């Protein structure tokens, strides 16, 4: 049994909130570079260049890449041999509170969905925990902006809809979103499970680096096909038209019921942020 203090978790979460909002993961900056190199439409090329300039400006001026510094989605892989000294969830909320305050990040959370009073410190975090073997604790902070979150969709398809039905739903989601989610987008797609599980799968898919395909060749192929079909929409960067509408598609699946085919698309943008520390 290994002990990790709540204070260590708080400090790590605070650092991660700031880092995730200021520096993009390398796989995302690489994908943007590749997008710019392969874009052929002049206004789109110019737009992608400016979006890359923005990444540089953020880094140079120590500014958040995007002003929507998001809802702090925190994913924890907790080794089953870890004992946490202190309150676990409160340690994470405290880390978010600290990171968003000290990092001059925007506080975008309201305490109640209908009465809408801002909590002023971006808490609570949205926490997802998975118990894993070992004595380590890996924490990933994903600040999720709502320009793209609002364009996400879920459907309970029929088994007869099959892979074609899934593809149609994903492509329709991007078509309906149009310019709103700040394309080029990144898509997390969940297939299977139950109503709640499929949304969690879609969100979890956004944690996977863009240069890592699904390990199952069947789903790697589906990811490639979805990327191709979405880019054939011609929406382009910022919706101004062009070749690059989407930077990457990650599909995650789970066993499901004989009677169902749930599918969920979690839309993210060119500022797909995540940062991880292992304690």
């Amino acid at each position, binding site marked *: 049994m290994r002990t990790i203090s709540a204070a260590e978790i708080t400090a790590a979460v605070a650092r991660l909130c700031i880092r995730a909002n200021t520096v993009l993961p390398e796989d995302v900056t690489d994908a943007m570079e590749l997008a710019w190199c392969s874009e052929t439409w002049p206004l789109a090329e110019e737009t992608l260049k400016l979006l890359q300039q923005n990444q540089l400006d953020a880094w140079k001026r120590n500014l958040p*890449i995007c002003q929507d510094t998001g809802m702090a989605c925190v994913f924890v892989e907790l080794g089953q041999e870890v004992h946490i000294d202190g309150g676990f969830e409160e340690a994470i909320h405290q880390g978010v509170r600290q990171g968003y305050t000290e990092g001059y990040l925007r506080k975008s959370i309201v305490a109640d969905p209908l009465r809408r009073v801002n909590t002023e410190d971006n808490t609570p975090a949205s926490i997802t925990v998975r118990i894993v073997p070992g004595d380590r604790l890996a924490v990933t902070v994903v600040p999720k902006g709502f320009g793209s979150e609002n364009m996400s969709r879920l459907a309970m398809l029929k088994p007869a809809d099959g892979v074609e039905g899934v593809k149609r739903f994903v492509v329709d989601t991007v078509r309906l979103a149009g310019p*709103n989610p700040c394309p080029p987008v990144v898509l997390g797609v969940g297939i299977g499970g139950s109503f709640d599980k499929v949304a969690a799968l879609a969100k979890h898919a956004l944690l996977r680096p863009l240069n890592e395909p699904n390990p199952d060749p069947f789903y790697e192929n589906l990811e490639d096909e979805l990327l191709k079909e979405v880019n054939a929409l011609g929406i382009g960067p910022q919706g101004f*038209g062009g070749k690059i509408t989407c930077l990457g598609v990650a599909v995650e699946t789970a066993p499901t019921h004989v009677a169902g085919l749930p599918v969920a698309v979690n839309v993210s943008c060119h500022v797909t942020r995540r940062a991880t520390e292992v304690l």
Partner: protein
Amino acid sequence: MQYKLTTPVTREDLAPLRAGDTVLLSGVVYTARDAAHKRMMELLDKGEPLPFPVEGSALYYVGPTPERPGEVIGSAGPTTSGRMDAYSPRLLDLGQAIMIGKGARNQAVKDTVVRNGAVYLAALGGAGALMAASVQKLEVICWEDLGCEAVRRLEVEDMPLTVILDPHGGDLYQSGPAAYLNSQKG
């Protein structure tokens, strides 16, 4: 085409603009998101004046991050404009000339843009650091309780924008993708 414009603007200033043109905007720009728009409607309902001179004005749909000490503004990219669709026509009819945001607008907004010779310009979504660079001065002018949604008076220089809706009915979100797809057919 690229145009340089300074606020407040006239209908004549905006007449040459076409969807897909770029604009470098200078002068005063006011910030407002949905919460501030809602309060503006309440003022108008009561017959009270708006917190800024509306004629020829530009409104930027943005909720910036808090500025660090010594900095003018934090990160300041656009929010999704569709949330302002319910409010924009009334302001455009009163003389607001420029809307700045990102994302699609409804038919009522499009019609009001044409009727008033106004424009809807896109700032780069997700490019908060880049958009912030054009802001020279910031002052919260009202509704401080709204936090990042309070109305701010910004002085901007050469803010880089793209024309989405022009006074002649043009819509880049329709024509841009269509033109690209057309170019792929040949």
